[in-house]
Every structure is written in C-alpha cells, then in structure tokens.
C-alpha cells in the first residue's frame, strides 16, 4: 500500500456515507409507506461502497473483479425474480452465498497471513470461518428442504444433540489451538470442515414448520460472520453491516421462538423439532360438523365481520388469489374482512403477508396476532385456511399438550369458526386440534383453492 491520502480519504468517506445509508435503509423499512425509499438508500450505499473500493489503489488486477461482478449479476437477477412462494428457499440460498463469501475470504486471509497474524485477528478469523461454514451448509440444507429436494420430515436419532454439540466443541477446541499455536497451519482445514459437517447435521432434525426460526437464526449467523470479517479486515463498514444483519436475525429468531413457545437457548443450540414425537396416542372419534360451499357462502354473506386465518396450507394449495376473490366478493357486500396472521405461519417470518400482498390484498387488512386477537369475540366468522396448530385452543387450556403455552390466534372465540382442510389428519406437530369438535365449528373438507373458489362462485351467483 503506498501513500495517497487523498484517494484513501475519499474511499473512507464513501464508506461512511454508505454506513449512514444502510442504517437509514433499515429505518425506512419500518413502514410500508417509506420502505421502498429504504431499498433505494441501501442500493445507493452499496453502489458508493463498491465504487469507493474499486478506487483503492492497492488493487492492481481488475480483470477478475469485473468478470466476477458480471457473473454475480447474471446469477443474482434470476434469484431476484423467483416466485413469491419460493422466497423462503431463495432467502436460505442467499444466506448460503453470503456465508460462502465470508468463509472464502477468511480462508484466504489465513493462508496469506499465517503464521504471523495477531492473536486477536486469528481468534476472530476462526469465528468468522466457523460461523461462515456452518451457515453455508446449514442454509443449503434449509434451502433444499424448502425446495423439497431433500425430505422435509425431521430426521432424528438418539444422541443427536450430543453428536452435534460434540462436533461444534471439537471445532472450537481446534480454533483455540490455532489461536495459541498459529504455526500449526495444517489444523486450519478442520475449522472449515467440521462446521461444514455441523451445518448439515444441525438442519437434519428440523421439520418444515420450524423453518421460520431456523432461517432467522441462519440470518443472524451470516450477519455475525460478516461482522467478524469486518474485525479481521478492520473495516468499520463491514462490522456495522454485519452487526445490523446479526441483530435483525436475532430479533426475528427471538420473535419466532416466542411464537412457538420455545426457549431462546432451545433455539440457539439448534435443538428444534424434537419434542413433539410423543404425540397423544388416543385418536379423537367425536363427531364433527361439516358444511358445503353453499352453506359456507350463506353464513359468510350474512356476517358483518369476518377474519380469515391463513396458514402454510394456503400457500401450498396456491389459494391466495382465490382468497383475494373471496375478500373482494365479501367486501362488496359490505362485510368487514380482515386477516389474522400468526408470526410463524408460512415458512419464514412474514411469508404470509408477502403472499397476500402479492394477491393484491391491502396491507392494512393484514393484522398481526397481537392486534387481531382482541377482535375475535366480536367476529361473526373466523375462516381458517390451511392453518392448524396456530389455532389450536389446547395451547391455552391443555397443560399436557406439547404446544401448551404457545401463543395462538383465538379463533375459537368467534361466533362461527370455519376450517378448510383436506381431511381430519393432525397438523405438523401431530397434535389433535379440539377446535374441530366445537359446536360452533364447521369443517369445510376439500382443497383450499377449489373450496374457496366454490364459495366465491356461490357468493357471485347468489347476488347479481
């Protein structure tokens, strides 16, 4: 590095402005009215930072950089254009890419600098590489499960936690040895390889419904590994961006774990999806009341206030556009229709909101669990589409239920509950839902998309 303070100062200033723009970007994201401005601020900051970096006169070779930037853009554009239903796996894949970048840069820094790296740098570098590698394979696994390339069913075996924590423990010990004795460079591949394996093992026991928590957690890891990279490179910009991303992922993971009534340590150690194996044995044989689309349409059009509760089943059935038609048909008749959205509905935080917004449902009709729950006692009809455990009143009342204590949408407090469901099969957690046996509950058996379609036809036919 030579001394051209002029250029270096300019570069540092672009980083400073980029940092401010990144923070503003997240601040503007707080409301849908300013959110797009937030994206613009983020883009501008990114552009400035990259342009500034390219000015860096330490850079002597531009060819590969340009090729890589072009190639990354070519890969990035289709990743930005995936269908909204595929956003969870896209997000998981992008966590993997971010982690890959950090791991590769960390690895290169080790081999360029060792055995003369300052001890602290070596420690952070080890953290960077460990977090990066486990996030890389973990996110790939998560993406594979979400894309259904890999089996979605959780795979568990005896002593899984011990094996996993043992693996992580070995990686940490090796990292410790490297910090103390950097000349043992042959150990370095272990702190990449073991976390790579750990990432795979960590996701194996995780089922689809736990994905929102896992994606958030991987998001946080990706951020922290980037912050660690910032410490290695002494880049404040990277430290701040990584800290922001880490904080965001952490907040979302805590939200998700609260919404599933899991303790935070339970989330941190990746021990999800294992408790519900002991599903209640006794099958409920009580009768349920079912209704046809015609009957459902009659009840809905007589209602004043309807709350629709969508779950992942709605997304699987691709029913969101039919749901919009239902929303339109009911709104036209003067029915007040709102949507009640559980934080863990779908496969990632906020997934349902995006799917419903894509179907042109105004966002002020999409209400979070805490905001809608007070409305149910005054609600005429709660219509549950493809959601199960998040509406299970056993979470409130039955201390022996595996989901006891989980916050739920209180649909059972509505005057009439309608549940669209393929059959009486239990939900993800294999738990019976007493909601279905209430006197006020009507089961609407069928595929969500075609059933909602039939209700819409009935409503249209009955009116004009």
């Amino acid at each position, binding site marked *: 590095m030579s001394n051209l303070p002029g250029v270096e100062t300019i570069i540092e200033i672009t980083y400073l402005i*980029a940092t401010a723009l*990144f*923070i503003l*970007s*997240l601040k503007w*994201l*707080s409301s849908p*009215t300013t*959110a*797009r401005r*937030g994206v613009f601020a*983020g*883009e501008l900051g*990114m552009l400035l930072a*990259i342009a500034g970096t390219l000015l860096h006169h330490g*850079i*002597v*070779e531009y060819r*590969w*950089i340009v090729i*890589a930037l072009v190639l*990354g*853009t070519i*890969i*990035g*554009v*289709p*990743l*930005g*254009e995936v269908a*909204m239903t595929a956003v969870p796996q896209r997000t998981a894949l*992008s966590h993997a890419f*971010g982690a*890959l*970048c950090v791991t590769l*840069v960390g*690895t*290169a820094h080790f081999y*360029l600098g060792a055995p003369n790296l300052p001890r*602290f740098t070596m420690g952070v570098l080890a953290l960077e590489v460990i977090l990066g590698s486990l996030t890389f394979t973990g996110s790939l696994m998560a993406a594979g499960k979400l894309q259904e390339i890999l089996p979605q069913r959780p795979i568990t075996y005896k002593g899984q936690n011990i094996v996993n924590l043992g693996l992580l423990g070995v990686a940490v010990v090796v990292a410790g040895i490297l910090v103390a004795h950097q000349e043992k460079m042959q150990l370095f591949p272990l702190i990449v390889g073991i976390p790579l394996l750990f990432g795979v093992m960590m996701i194996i026991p995780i089922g689809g419904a736990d994905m929102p928590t896992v994606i958030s957690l991987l998001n946080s890891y990706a*951020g922290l590994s*980037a912050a660690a*990279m910032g410490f290695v490179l002494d*880049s*404040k*910009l*990277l430290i701040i961006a*990584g*800290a*922001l991303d880490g904080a*965001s992922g952490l907040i979302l993971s805590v*939200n998700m774990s609260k919404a599933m009534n899991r303790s935070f340590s339970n989330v941190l150690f990746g021990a999800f999806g294992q408790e519900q194996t002991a599903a209640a044995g006794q099958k409920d044989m009580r009768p349920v009341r079912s209704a046809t689309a015609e009957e459902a349409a009659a009840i809905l059009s007589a209602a004043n206030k309807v709350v629709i509760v969508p779950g992942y089943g709605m997304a699987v059935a691709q029913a969101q556009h039919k749901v919009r038609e239902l929303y339109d048909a009911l709104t036209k008749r003067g029915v007040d229709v709102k949507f009640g959205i559980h*934080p863990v509905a779908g496969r*990632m*935080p*906020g997934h349902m909101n995006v799917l419903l*917004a894509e179907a*042109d449902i105004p*966002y002020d009709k*999409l209400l979070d669990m805490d905001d809608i729950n007070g409305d149910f006692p005054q609600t005429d009809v709660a219509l549950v589409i493809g959601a199960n455990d998040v509406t299970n009143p056993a979470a409130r009342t039955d201390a022996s239920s595996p989901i006891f204590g989980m916050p739920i949408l209180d649909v059972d407090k509505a005057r009439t509950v309608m549940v669209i469901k393929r059959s009486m099969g239990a939900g993800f957690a294999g738990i019976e839902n007493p909601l279905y046996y209430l006197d006020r509950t009507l089961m609407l058996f069928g595929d969500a998309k075609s059933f909602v379609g039939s209700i819409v036809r009935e409503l249209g036919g009955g009116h004009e």
Partner: protein
Amino acid sequence: MKLDLLTSLYVFMLAAFIGFEVIRRVSPLLHTPLMSLTNALDAIAVVGAIILAGEYHAHGAMLARILGTIAIVAATSNIVGGFLITDRMLKMFKASGPKKP
C-alpha cells in the same frame, strides 16, 4: 489491547444497539422484505472480496484471486438478487383506498 481494536469493538456494540432499536420497529408485516434487505446489505462483504481478489500478493496470489473471485460472485448475486426481490415485494404492499393507516 490495541486502541483501534477497542474502537472496532465500540463500533460493533453501538451498531448492534442501533440495529436492535431500528429493527424492533419494523412491523411484522414486512419481516420477509426485512430479511432479504439485510441479506443484501450484508453482502457488503463484497468489499473485502474485491480487495482480496485485486490486491498484489507476494505469495499465495493464485489462492487469493480464485477465492476472492468466487467470493465476489457469491456476494454480488446476493446484492443484485436481494435488492431486486425486496423492491418487488415492497411494490406489492398497497394500502386500501385513499386512507392511510
């Protein structure tokens, strides 16, 4: 402990607090765009990858070029894809009627 290291730790701590305060205010409505946006911002790691791939290295230049180039590709695809999809999602969020909540 070296002074600039301590400064970095202060920066990290303050950024984490800002992150918590700012992101706590993001409505659950926008949690998916939040994640794709932070993901794009996180890809600022590209800066480190660019320097790695482009700088002069007395030894290990090949390693630095190859790893750096792959790292740039990975990060750039996150930047481009992340901003694109975030904007696409946000464009879909519309309020009902003229009244804003």
